[in-house]
């Protein structure tokens, strides 16, 4: 059997490192790119090179943008006095898709984890405390995962912000839209019952 050229093998190896792709699916993706070199591969390569050159971590919130300060942090309309704390850029994108939050964000870059030896100093918690002190912040919304690590981090941040006097809130936990009680785990049902409100 004829061997695949070395460059193409290297491309397949690199593609296989992407989330959701294994060696076989990477091979399929590369084959598709090779078949559509002009229409897909060349523009994709050009854009990827550009983004690799221009992408920056926002110095204020940690979001990924094309400048030292991201668009959200530059936008005066988003200076509502609310900072939403999220674990990762993916969470920021999820909240932005929902268009429900009009304030600014702060990306921690992970959560405290005993297993992975991630401590407070490995996260952007000191920067958050400094931001709350410097900016006219009314409320910090902790939008962290409802996991042991996520909530441990949330409690830690709430403690760290205690001295600033800022109001600290967290996302509600309970029945998701379209959720059926029969399929919910007992922890979610318990949290939903605890957070019930007048109807």
């Amino acid at each position: 059997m004829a061997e695949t050229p070395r460059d193409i093998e290297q491309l397949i190896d690199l593609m296989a490192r992407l989330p959701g792709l294994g060696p076989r699916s990477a091979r399929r993706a590369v084959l598709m790119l090779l078949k559509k070199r002009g229409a897909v591969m060349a523009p994709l390569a050009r854009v990827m090179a550009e983004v690799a050159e221009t992408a920056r971590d926002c110095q204020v919130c940690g979001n990924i943008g094309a400048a030292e300060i991201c668009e959200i942090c530059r936008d005066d309309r988003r200076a509502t006095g609310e900072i939403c704390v999220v674990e990762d850029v993916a969470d920021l994108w999820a909240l932005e898709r929902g268009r429900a939050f009009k304030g600014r964000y702060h990306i921690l870059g992970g959560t405290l984890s005993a297993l992975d030896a991630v401590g407070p100093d490995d996260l952007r918690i000191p920067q958050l405390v400094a931001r709350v002190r410097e900016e006219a912040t009314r409320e910090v919304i902790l939008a962290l995962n409802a996991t042991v690590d996520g909530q441990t981090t949330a409690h830690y941040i709430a403690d760290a912000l205690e001295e600033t006097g800022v109001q600290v809130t967290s996302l509600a936990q309970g029945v998701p839209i379209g959720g059926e009680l029969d399929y919910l785990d007992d922890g979610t049902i318990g949290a939903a019952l605890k957070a019930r409100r007048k109807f």
Partner: protein
Amino acid sequence: MEWQDEGVLIAMRPHGEASAIIEVFTAVHGRHAGVVRGGASRKVAAIMQPGTQLAVTWRARLEDHIGSFSVEPLQSRAALLGDRLALAGLSAICAMLRVALPEREGHPNLWRATMALLAALEHDPDWPALYLRWELILLEELGFGLDLTRCAATGSRDDLAFVSPKTGRAVSRGGAGEWADRLFPLPQCLMGQGPASAAEVAQGLAITGHFLARELAPVLGNRPMPEARTRLLTMLEKRR
């Protein structure tokens, strides 16, 4: 190879795209790791949290293989997510079990104590005293139990007031003499006597922490004790 047991999930990390490698502390088989196919999926994310009580079935072709688990949830600890101190307690328990216990070695006494402590985290506000006793049992199970029954110097069973940081044995007030300031003060709650104040629990945890750090040093290398335990101690200290 196949067995069924009941266990508490103490650690989970993703394995590939969809699977997970979990560590459970089981009633009969002790700390045991295994792969859970589909364990990293969102469907089972609520189950795959530290502290969840599981019915597990372990299968492997050979005994020394890592093998795979199939898991059924028995009890969630999600109620602890909103309680910062109890959550810190849960994290400390899982971290200590993971660091301290050798793999695949049953510890039925420690299992029973762990179950009682996990239940207390949800219902008993005095659980820090139970946590202290749990660390004592952990030391015992590791073979480094403290001897608090009689004075190491005089043999007396009365007026025990100190613990030797070298031997882990109790020392009476009379037996301590001029060495008293080099010994740990012995809180009475460590001997199961009387209610445990926050200060006494802190004193007790300083003692168990000293011996755990010393005995676990070969396992820990140059690393300190788990951060989760340190965080729990800081919170308990703030409460005093």
